[in-house]
């Protein structure tokens, strides 16, 4: 073992080493240690900041609002959402989110939480799902959809992702999601994979989860809906994906589109066994 290559202390070097080399090695060791400590300290500081924000997440405000809206009689049919079937039976909300997106026999398609919520708002309350989908984020009923979605995710907080792949449509959507994930396009030739297919990537100080496997998939997928402190807004997965596409310089996907649902299937299945942390708090 050559002492010149070793990161071990100079003391491990055989006697006969000149003092100069020993000093050089020690200095290098300290320099490396210093740099490593400085880097660790930055990441640690950011982690500390994030921890400080966990207690008292403003997402709680949206969660409370969402629960009220679920139980409130609303819409042309003046009915509540308490009979909404999110995949585990009418009215069963606990544990529903960690199994979404999934196939629904009544609509004949795979749906994610937000598109399924629109289905319920239409069939039970008489809202027009298409009009809801066209409502811009942050406006009118979209705010209510976001709030309800926040509450639905909170009802699965801490549970484990367990999306089904037993239906052929679910398996198909996984494959579609995977293709979309790797599809490069737009003016910058970006794909989701450009940022989210490798470990330990970041943009400035923002970590980028690797969404192709655990633990990144559950960490990333499982954190939305999330409260974004930078704009004080509550973002569901639909808005998160919409903004990803904006950042990739792609056209915006339609709310609840097949493309967004497929990506949800891809991420959610990749995150199987991971913990649901939503509603989270983000930069």
């Amino acid at each position, binding site marked *: 073992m050559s002492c010149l290559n070793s990161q071990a202390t100079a003391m491990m070097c055989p006697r006969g080493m000149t003092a100069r080399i020993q000093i050089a090695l020690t200095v290098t060791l300290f320099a490396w240690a210093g740099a490593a400590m400085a880097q660790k*300290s*930055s990441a640690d*500081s*950011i982690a*500390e*900041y*994030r921890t*400080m*924000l966990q207690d008292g997440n403003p997402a709680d405000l949206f969660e409370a609002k969402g629960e009220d809206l679920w139980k409130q009689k609303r819409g042309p049919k003046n009915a509540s959402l308490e009979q909404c079937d999110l995949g585990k039976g009418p009215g069963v909300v606990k544990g529903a989110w960690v199994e979404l997106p999934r196939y629904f026999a009544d609509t004949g398609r795979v749906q994610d939480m937000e598109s399924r919520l629109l289905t319920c708002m239409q069939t039970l309350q008489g809202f027009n799902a298409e009009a809801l989908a066209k409502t811009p984020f942050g406006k009118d009923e979209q705010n209510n959809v976001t709030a309800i979605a926040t509450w639905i995710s909170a009802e699965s907080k801490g549970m484990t992702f367990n999306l089904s792949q037993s239906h052929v449509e679910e398996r198909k959507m996984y494959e579609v999601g995977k293709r979309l994930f790797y599809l490069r396009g737009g003016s910058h030739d970006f794909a989701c994979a450009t940022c989210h297919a490798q470990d330990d990537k970041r943009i*400035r*100080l*923002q970590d980028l989860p690797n969404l192709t496997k655990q633990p990144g998939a559950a960490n990333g997928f499982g954190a939305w809906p999330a409260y974004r*402190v*930078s*704009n*004080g807004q509550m973002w569901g997965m639909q808005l998160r994906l919409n903004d990803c596409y904006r950042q990739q310089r792609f056209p915006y996907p339609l709310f609840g589109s097949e493309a967004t649902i497929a990506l949800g299937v891809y991420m959610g299945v990749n995150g199987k066994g991971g913990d649901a942390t939503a509603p989270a708090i983000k*930069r």
Partner: protein
Amino acid sequence: MHTRRETLRHSAVVAGLLASTGLFPQYAQAFDKVAFDAKTIAEAVKAMGGAAPVESKDVTITGPDIAENGAVVPLGVSTWLPNVKRVLLLVEKNPAPLVAMFNLSPDIEAIFTTRSKMGQSSDVYAVAITHDGKAFFAKKEVKVTLGGCGG
């Protein structure tokens, strides 16, 4: 016979009592606009009834070393000093440094945590002002990676 001072003090006590009932808004304490508009820490502390602040180990300011986003920076102020009337939270480099002021009472502990916007990396201050008008501070540097005031 009441002296004028006694009469004034009596009025203040009565005004305070009336204010606390919430039924007499004209006696309610006005928002300290001057303090919140002050452009320097010294001016804000002065407007809040404190002299030039002196550093003290009995005043604490807590917060992260780095805030990922200046829109929301968790900060805490606390003090073990006796006879404290109010505790201030200030961000030196904000357009107006005074963020919040907490009045102390025997019913609460002198520890408060809230979240502040920070426009840029800056020293943040906790200032305790005593009933006799003295002021004591602690400060800490908080680095901010993205400004939280408008951009």
